């Protein structure tokens, strides 16, 4: 999959806060597999698929994503060998499961993500009470919460579904037709302005070309970055919906 975007010359500067461990935890949760017994081939395959998607969309992702892909493939290759035939590895004790270090890292990170949620609850509670020096505090720079409650991976999953369907559809692509992200931004703006809540799928016209789908998706990311729209899910892994930020 090459980049579709060079022709359009458009790069979404949306900062992706999630890292490789977030993607792995997302995939493990989505597939409902055990973190202690990760089906490494399947997860690696999916991981690489998301990584390719992010590269194709030219998203601003952390370099650690590529490093993790290499780690996963390394673990995968070691898993294929019986324990006594595995070459020595400095990160791995003799006879140790090649996944052990990764599992430990994932479990620890997951634990911190959970307490970060606890902290968030405390923060929300505390934000309902005010002391006399509130004015001072308002001078401090605020730290923003990105993408509302939807992760970039949820968005990518939704995008991938639409994109795959288009790839399978026997529609000849008219490559000469230029699709501009800027036009799509205008289109989405109009759509959310006239509808309270727009479903992600409704952003794409039936029989959209792949180029059009990419441009539409990037336009949506750009609107998120501009804080013009809010994306949300009513339940975990539920359909993604968009609304205008008033």
């Amino acid at each position, binding site marked *: 999959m090459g980049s579709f975007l060079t022709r359009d010359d458009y790069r979404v500067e949306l900062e992706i806060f999630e890292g490789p461990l977030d993607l792995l935890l997302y995939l493990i949760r989505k597939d409902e597999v055990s973190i202690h017994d990760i089906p490494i081939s399947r997860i690696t395959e999916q991981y690489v698929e998301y990584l390719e998607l992010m590269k194709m969309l030219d998203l601003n992702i952390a370099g650690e994503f590529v490093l993790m892909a290499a780690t996963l493939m390394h673990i995968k290759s070691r898993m294929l060998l019986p324990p006594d035939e595995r070459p020595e590895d400095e990160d791995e004790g003799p006879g140790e499961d090649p996944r052990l270090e990764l599992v430990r890292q994932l479990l620890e990170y997951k634990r911190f*993500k959970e307490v*970060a949620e606890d902290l968030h609850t405390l923060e929300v509670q*505390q934000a309902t009470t*005010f002391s006399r020096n509130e004015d001072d505090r308002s001078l401090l720079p*605020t730290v923003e919460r*990105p993408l509302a409650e939807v992760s970039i991976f949820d968005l990518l999953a939704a995008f991938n579904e639409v994109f795959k369907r288009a790839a399978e559809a026997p529609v000849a692509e008219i490559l000469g037709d230029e699709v501009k992200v800027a036009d799509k931004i205008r289109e989405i703006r109009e759509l959310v302005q006239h509808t309270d809540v727009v479903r992600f799928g409704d952003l794409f016209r039936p029989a959209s070309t792949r180029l059009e789908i990419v441009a539409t998706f990037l336009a949506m990311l750009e609107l998120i970055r501009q804080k013009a729209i809010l994306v949300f899910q009513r339940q975990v892994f539920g359909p993604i919906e968009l609304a205008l930020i008033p």
Partner: protein
Amino acid sequence: MGTDNDTMTNGGTGAPDVETTTDVARDAEPHVKAGEQQPLEQEATGREQLLAAVEALLFVSKQPLTTASVRRALSDDVKLSDVDVATIVEELRISYLRDGRGFRLVELAGGYQLRTASEFAPYILKLFKEPREERLSQPALETLAIIAYRQPIVKAEIEAIRGVDVSGVLQTLVDRGLVRIAGRKEVPGRPFLYETARLFLEHFGLKDTEELPHISELRAADPKQGTLDLK
């Protein structure tokens, strides 16, 4: 009930009752005043004054008021122990609750602070011209959590847990005063050690870091983590 009428109504029905009660009341009043209530009142005045003084200190304090500051501020007139201060504060706290005041006295970041009751948050937000977004981003919360539970900690250790570069987030947290530099770690390169600042406790409404959720469990993982890091 007029005293003049007491003798006049003496023969009437139901009068003895009235007379008895007034007599008791008349007798009892001077007794109580002389014996108990007066010294109590005097003491109460001193006590009320003390409570009011501490209330005044709480009112002007921008930062959570510590027990030590209260003792120091009042030291010319009264020698208070830490327990005395705690008792006074507790009395004030209960009185605000009982009187249904618009603010509460809370223990926060190693001191005490007057804070508005949560139920009035909508009015206060409306009063402020620009409502502030006080919530921290997911990466900021995760980074803060790691620092809070594993402090003091160097940047590389935070990155090992989060799996991504944290330079930007860390700088924002320092700029915002939630995190501060605790010193340098005596390892090659002498990297900075980070720890949570007082504002962190205030922001999350915590008395101290011991009050963090699941603190013992997450700190218990610390030595294990340390040995793994040595590789």
